[in-house]
């Protein structure tokens, strides 16, 4: 099933929840809508489910108008944020609900319903719990019931609203893997909403980053992470160091660091640079341009260590991530002086007034230059 959304707009009182959103979703794709709260991602999901309607724009499913179909005829499976299980129905009755409310002619026979519910119970690994009420299940079990209930109507589009939001960390990771495997098995077109970038990057084929009702970037997790399209994406995805860069008589420079080249050919005098903590190189030889920095703190977090370095020439603290084993290999101690330089950076030009220009992006790599 192909889904195409064209210029969807949705306004609530004094608030633009969706602003000209266009998006195409291919059959079998696993798409994450990622953004902070208020970014419009849930509104978009509710529009797909038929629980809300855009003020303008169109949605086509396999070339046909999707918005004209009411929610209950869309063949969409929805897993709600708090699951919205029917408290007064058992697990089996919850899963069978969508089949039992069908008009008489389309309703499967009792035996068929029973069989399908049994199969779904097995699929979500809840055999033997069919007679329980939702109040008697754990959070992870409830989530799987909600999923089974959504799958029971054999949807061709599965929607999940913050599917792991209400679960504790361990269950969350386990269910994430399980959902990914389920998707690989069923190849069901799936759209899920999350504010957790780790979740989006780990699960999705494609990530849609949203902010203030607009789509900031659409792309595979690698592209989103390595080639962020806008300053917002840089700052929202992962941790990032941000500092100012100026054009001097000898080219671009920030403190002792000088990225070679200029894709803008002298059109701009200032830019803002984003560098991820793991893209900072320590112990740079004195022959290369780099920052002089002093190591202030070491925070050991399992396999990774977070270092805090003060760079006097930037008058700023930068964060650097290294493998924990490198701590001893490099003999790192708080108070040490180190030379520090980026391996790669993303730069956005600034106009003379200091406003960042989202479309003037320069993805800089050590030794080679890429202009996107």
């Amino acid at each position, binding site marked *: 099933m192909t889904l195409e959304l*064209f*210029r969807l707009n949705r306004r609530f009182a004094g608030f633009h929840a969706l602003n000209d959103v266009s998006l195409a979703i291919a059959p079998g794709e696993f798409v994450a809508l990622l953004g902070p709260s208020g970014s419009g991602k849930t509104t978009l999901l509710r529009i797909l489910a038929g629980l809300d*309607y*855009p*003020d*303008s*724009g*169109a949605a086509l499913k396999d070339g046909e108008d999707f*918005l*004209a179909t009411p929610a209950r005829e869309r063949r969409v499976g929805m897993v709600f944020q708090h699951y919205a299980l029917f408290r007064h129905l058992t697990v089996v009755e919850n899963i069978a609900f969508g089949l039992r409310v069908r008009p008489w002619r389309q309703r499967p026979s009792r035996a068929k319903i029973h069989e399908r519910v049994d199969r779904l119970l097995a699929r979500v690994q809840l055999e033997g719990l069919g007679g329980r009420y939702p109040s008697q299940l754990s959070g992870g079990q409830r989530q799987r019931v909600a999923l089974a209930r959504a799958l029971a109507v054999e949807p061709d589009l599965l929607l999940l609203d913050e599917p792991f939001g209400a679960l504790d960390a361990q269950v969350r990771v386990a269910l994430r893997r399980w959902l990914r495997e389920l998707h690989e098995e069923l190849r069901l077109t799936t759209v899920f909403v999350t504010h957790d970038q780790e979740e989006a990057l780990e699960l999705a084929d494609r990530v849609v980053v949203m902010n203030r009702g607009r789509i900031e970037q659409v792309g595979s997790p690698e592209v989103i992470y390595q080639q962020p399209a806008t300053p917002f994406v840089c700052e929202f995805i992962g941790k990032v160091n941000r500092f100012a860069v100026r054009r001097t008589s000898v080219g671009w420079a920030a403190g002792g660091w000088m990225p070679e080249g200029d894709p803008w050919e002298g059109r701009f005098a200032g830019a803002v640079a984003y560098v991820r903590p793991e893209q900072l190189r320590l112990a740079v030889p004195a022959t290369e341009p780099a920052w002089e920095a002093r190591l202030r703190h070491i925070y050991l977090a399992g396999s990774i260590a977070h270092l805090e370095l003060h760079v006097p020439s930037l008058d700023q603290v930068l964060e650097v991530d290294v493998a924990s084993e490198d701590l001893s290999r490099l003999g790192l101690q708080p108070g040490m002086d180190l030379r520090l330089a980026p391996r790669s950076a993303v730069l956005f030009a600034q106009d003379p007034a200091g406003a960042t220009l989202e479309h003037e992006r320069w993805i800089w790599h050590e030794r080679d230059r890429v202009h996107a």
Partner: protein
Amino acid sequence: MSARPRQRKPGLPRRLVHVVLILFALVFLLLFLVLPLATVFVEAFRQGVLPYLSAIREPEALAAIRLTLLVAVIAVPLNVVFGLAAAWAMTRFEFRGKALLGALIDLPFSVSPVISGLVYVLLFGAQGWFGPWLDAHGVKIIFAVPGLVLATVFITLPFVARELIPLMQAQGSEEEEAARVLGAGGWQMFFRVTLPNIRWALLYGVLLCNARAMGEFGAVSVVSGHIRGLTTTMPLEVEMRYNEYDYVGAFAVASLLALLALVTLGVKTLLEWRYRGELAAHAPGGH
């Protein structure tokens, strides 16, 4: 792409259902609540303002008003003290039989008002347990003011306690424990910590208790003996005038009680609106 109007948000049929349901509810409330209330005032003023005024200035009416106030002034404080004691015991301590105590507090709500009066007649009436003894000592309870007070106390007993218990349960005892740790004495703790925390709920309970105390009919009717000017409260005066076909007189006194009800509703709504968080989420009051 052309702009798509929001044509399919709550569709026309659904909105029609809304309107029909609202109209239905309005008609019912009008018929069952507004009209009876309006009737009271219309009937009271049917012959104009002067007959109305003279009807409520008659000595019997004034005596009934005085008696009603007297009964309420005794019954309400009694139940306030009881409500505070019961709520304190129920919400601050664990003890056996707590659920039973709670059920006992609610009991008067499920007893017919007539039975509430009857039990005191059986206790203190001429043929009652203490009847002969009281008679010998010249004490009159039934067909006198003490009986009216007792019946009213019975009927209104749950109001304050029921308002306080859920609130104090929800508030917990941490603040009071803190006060104790800081060296407050028992009454200091009560007046400086407990009472300020429950004042609006207490006022709410007093309001409901008072409305009920002044308006009670069935229970006081049984113990009153209907002695005009001596043991007739306002609701009883309404009944007697009505049965004597003095409709203007009956509705005139009734209008005062209706006014009391409206004031009670107004203050109650105001309290709920202003101090929602400081009132317990409560089930409706009883009888």
